[in-house]
């Protein structure tokens, strides 16, 4: 047990200090012990500073100030309430401990007999009420400021799925064309401690959500399956993503940069693995990026029905499977019995092709199997189905083409 602890300890420390090579990782026991001592020391120091020093001062111990006007207001409010609590705490616990040290029998204290005082009791009902009113005033102000919706420069729909986010730029000029999924890109090997954890461990995604600086961006938040919650701490905003409901949130960010958050409502198995990454670009840069994305998306949509080779299908299918399917059906296709069925040897994957395509396009209502027809384009759908039929030992020996997907979808 202890030995294991040492090994793993060593592993984490590396990730924090500096990436090292594999060889170095298997360093001698002595080295490890030394490092553990060091680590224990750091822990002790951390503990001591936690318990003893003024908490407010240290950055990583406190709420983030953030980069928006709202987040700064929230931070100030947090500090006001916190300091009031500290002041009351010092006073109340001070009296308590004074009494504990002085009114003890061993010091010869004799018990007094008072047991009532209307004046005192009234005082400590009224004074706290007044303090609460003092707290409520700024709290109300900040809350009202947060509810100042409307007047937005652009809107983005944020949709939570088990276990990824979909972002759609609501832009009628282009028929809401720009839409994509954002999936955690931290490799499984890092999670399972088979490789060194990167700096943004669990906080990286394949596609950032991009927004411009200094514009009021409105987020419309909802979910497809279960409840999720969308949170970017540096913006000071968090809202639940509830199926069947559209929640509204807005922000104006002044500083360009990359801001990270995580899903904060338990949403099943991979709740811990659906981060949020927002990249804030200077306005001009954003506009250029947006225009180029929209036009290349329009081009891509035109060429979507083109036939693909087995190799192309397998290559794209592999990527799509890893991003969209592996969280439930697992990377090895074995699933998680009995909730998520295996693809390896599945009757569907070995059965008629169109049934397989249909299942993936329409999903299975009332289960976690989503209707991927609304998430993936025909090429991706054809590729992933073709892949499932020819991977994990499956060998259906047929072809699935984007045109088949289009035909099936139109036939409905």
């Amino acid at each position, binding site marked *: 047990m202890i030995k294991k602890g040492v090994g793993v300890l060593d592993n984490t420390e590396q990730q924090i200090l500096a990436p090292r090579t594999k060889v170095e990782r298997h360093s001698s026991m002595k080295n490890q012990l030394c490092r553990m001592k060091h680590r224990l020391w750091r822990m002790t120091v951390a503990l001591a500073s936690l318990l003893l020093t003024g908490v407010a001062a240290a950055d990583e111990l406190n709420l983030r100030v953030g980069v928006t006007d709202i987040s700064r207001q929230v931070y100030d409010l947090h500090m006001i309430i916190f300091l009031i609590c500290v002041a009351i705490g010092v006073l109340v616990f001070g009296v308590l401990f004074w009494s504990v040290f002085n*009114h003890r029998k061993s010091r010869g204290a004799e018990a007094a007999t008072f047991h009532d005082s209307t004046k005192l009791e009234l005082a400590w009902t009224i004074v706290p009420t007044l303090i609460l009113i003092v707290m409520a005033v700024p709290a109300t102000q900040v*809350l009202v400021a947060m509810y100042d919706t409307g007047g937005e420069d652009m809107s983005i729909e944020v949709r939570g799925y088990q276990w990824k986010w979909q972002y759609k730029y609501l832009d009628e000029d282009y028929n809401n064309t720009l839409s994509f999924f954002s999936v955690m890109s931290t490799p499984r090997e890092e999670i399972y401690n088979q490789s060194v954890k990167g700096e943004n461990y669990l906080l990286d995604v394949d596609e950032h959500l991009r927004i411009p600086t200094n514009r009021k961006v409105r987020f419309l938040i909802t979910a497809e399956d279960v409840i999720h919650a969308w949170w970017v701490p540096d913006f000071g905003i968090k809202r639940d993503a509830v199926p069947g409901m559209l929640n509204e949130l807005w922000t104006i960010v002044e500083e360009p940069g990359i801001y990270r958050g995580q899903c904060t409502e338990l949403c099943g198995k991979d709740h811990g693995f659906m981060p949020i990454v927002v990249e804030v670009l200077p306005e001009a840069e954003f506009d250029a990026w947006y225009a180029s994305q929209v036009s290349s998306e329009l081009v891509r949509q035109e060429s979507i029905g083109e036939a693909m080779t087995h190799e192309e299908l397998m290559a794209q299918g592999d990527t799509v499977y890893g991003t969209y399917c592996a969280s439930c059906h697992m990377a090895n296709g074995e699933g998680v019995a009995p909730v998520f069925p295996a693809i390896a040897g599945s009757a569907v994957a070995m059965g008629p092709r169109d049934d397989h395509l249909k299942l993936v396009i329409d999903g299975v209502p009332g289960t976690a199997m989503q209707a991927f027809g609304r998430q993936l384009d025909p090429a991706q759908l054809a590729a992933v189905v073709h892949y499932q039929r020819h991977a994990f030992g499956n060998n259906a020996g047929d072809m699935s083409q984007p045109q088949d997907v289009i035909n099936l979808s139109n036939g409905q």
Partner: protein
Amino acid sequence: MSEVIHADHHDDHAHGPAKGLKRWLFTTNHKDIGTLYLWFSFAMFLVGGVLALVIRAELFQPGLQFVQPEFFNQMTTNHGLIMVFGAIMPAFVGLANWLIPMQVGAPDMALPRMNNLSFWILPFAFGMMISTLFMEGGGPNFGWTFYAPLSTTYAPPSVTYFIFAVHLMGASSIMGSINIIATILNMRAPGMTLMKMPMFVWTWLITAYLLIAVMPVLAGAVTMMLFDIHFDTSFFNAAGGGDPVMFQHIFWFFGHPEVYIMILPAFGIVSHIIPAFARKRLFGYTSMVYAVASIAFLSFIVWAHHMFTVGMPLAGQLFFMYSTMLIAVPTGVKVFNWIATMWRGSMTFETPMLFAIAFVVLFTMGGFSGLMLAITPVDYQYHDTYFVVAHFHYVLVPGALFSIIAAVYFWFPKWTGKMYDETLGKIHFWLSFVGVNVTFFPQHFSGLAGMPRRIPDYPLQFADFNMISSVGAFIFGLSQVFFLYVIIKAIRSGQPAADRSWEGAKGLEWTLPSPAPYHSFTHPPAVKDEEVLG
């Protein structure tokens, strides 16, 4: 009433307990049932504790080491359910069984057979719930708050057992509450008016009403889940026109009073222990009673502060913010009254007193973080992070749990006629005190730094806090095994205890011999002010 008691004597023969297993299966004696409840809750506490240690072991370091995410979710869910419904609540009911009849000068509970039933339901309820962990697809994995549709459409097949288990727990609680109310209202010794009742009795009276009010609401929620799962209704299914947010409103309409159910009896306990060891009457008895009553009332109109992020209109947010902040007032009154009781007392610091003082300090810290959470705009930042985890563990562990431990040490001599070893008790206290703070204090910081709750793995910046927290959890867990040792040692070889086991202990129970006879107060005692009011 007298008929019931008569019948009870008839088949339980009036002079002593039956022998062997039958005694425990068929007992209608409040002391036996109290003992059953207490041991049951301790067993559940150990089970829930093991689950907590699985969680803390996995979170000791970033990365997945011991368990898979789907199993991790079952651990957090069952840890919460078992601790709330299996450990804390039954422990308080056990204390109520032991103490209320003795404190009001009654021979037994008003409804002894129902008392037996309400206990014996529990092992079946929890047996069923825990068995789901071994089923295909696993046990409940949707959090102890079981938000739909994660707990309905997306739940593992075993969820039906979970629903049935919750129904059973609810039935048990309702029966227990009816019994407690009937006992308190009908069986007090002549002369014990309501405003002379011991604080523990008062707090339980109010708690019992809360339970009767909200357990049916919980039953309603799980029944709707059952219908959504098996009969194609759409109470909580948006695709069928239902509303997942409605689930949360219903759940928290139960859930918020529920958290007071777990703390009001603790207030009662501390209001006995502090006066006893300060050798001074409880300060502000009347305002204590009114404070408990107003906390109970407020508990019904604050539920949506658990849901500030679901997207409510501004007016709703403001209402729930203000009403929640108000709870700080009566809670503050209680804390100030306890300190005023200690003030100019003549204090000694035996184990129950140590736990009681730690309760006052650490519960108040949980109160402070609660006040911070009440402030809606900053709650957006705290919500569903470890800050919340720290908050509710501060009010439940050094809060509710410490009060239960304090009660056990305090009344142990009355129950068994033996004294525990004071040195061992103090060691237990200090281990628990250190353990609890090392576990939960750092969680405030990981929460503020942005760590979401209920995740099996976390980004690297949270590594230090989690490591400290895990170390603390193991200290705390082991110190409760030590508690078991202290208790067993005392039962086996404790020194004989005096009838009034503590110099300053006041109340009718201390006028009885130690150990309290199997049937006590078969004739109502005289109620003297200096005994019941201290």
